[in-house]
């Protein structure tokens, strides 16, 4: 199933939050938050009204909301962002528009989908080979997420009922 990535097509409108553990392409409209472990691509005619938190974000359309990406954000020439950007590596192509606070070279914690647990380890020290070293080496990286071994899922809908104290 991974030949075709998930896609919200042009004639579609999603009102609500989207969370994913695989690549997502948005061509339609999303009014809500997008959280992904993988990449999110906002195509040219897409409009996203809400925050995006993913590993990699490529914006070719319109995003109104904050974008936080663990690896990188790229704003293509047709991309427009009204909101803050927070990521490790930021690429703003000539023509792209950003109105907000852009911070790059910072660590953004990764999103973990559903009931998966993340395996984290300290990132390897950079080797000073011919390739230029990353000026902002990451301190920790999320290696992989795996479904949590079967644990009883915490059903947060069943809240504890407090005994009602009514003063008579």
């Amino acid at each position, binding site marked *: 199933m991974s030949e075709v990535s998930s*896609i919200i*097509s042009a004639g*579609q409108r999603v009102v609500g939050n*989207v969370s994913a553990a695989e690549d997502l392409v948005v061509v339609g409209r999303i009014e809500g938050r997008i959280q992904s472990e993988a990449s999110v691509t906002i195509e040219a005619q897409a409009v996203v009204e809400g925050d995006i938190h993913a590993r990699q974000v490529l914006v070719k359309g319109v995003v109104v909301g904050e974008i936080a990406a663990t690896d990188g954000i790229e704003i293509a020439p047709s991309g427009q962002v009204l909101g803050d950007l927070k990521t490790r590596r930021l690429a703003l192509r000539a023509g792209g528009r950003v109105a907000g606070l852009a911070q790059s070279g910072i660590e953004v914690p990764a999103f973990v989908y559903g009931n998966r647990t993340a395996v984290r380890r300290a990132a390897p020290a950079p080797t000073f080979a011919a390739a230029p070293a990353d000026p902002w080496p990451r301190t920790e990286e999320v290696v992989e997420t795996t479904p949590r071994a079967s644990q009883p899922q915490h059903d947060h809908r069943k809240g504890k009922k407090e005994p009602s104290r009514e003063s008579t």
Partner: protein
Amino acid sequence: MAQETIIGAQVTIEGDISGTDAVQVHGTVRGGKIAVKEGVLVSATGKVEGDVESAAVEIAGHVQGNVAASDKVELKSGGKLFGDVKAPRILIADGASFKGNINMSA
């Protein structure tokens, strides 16, 4: 082939989906309604918790909610539907699970 919305196996949408293109649900859609003009396909890994309204609905996965189709509802083997169905044509395959009311009047 017109574009389709594909909700992959590891994607969860909590909210409404509306629009004109067909929808393939391989993941989870909950907390809202799917109201699309073209068809809706809930694949074997798909899970929908909420109403579905479309032209043709094919269910091979798990749907908990009412289904209304203007053309046809097809419940495939292995599919599970818990909710009412309102459609002029209904096909429930051997091996499907269904609990709800059926209304076939136009």
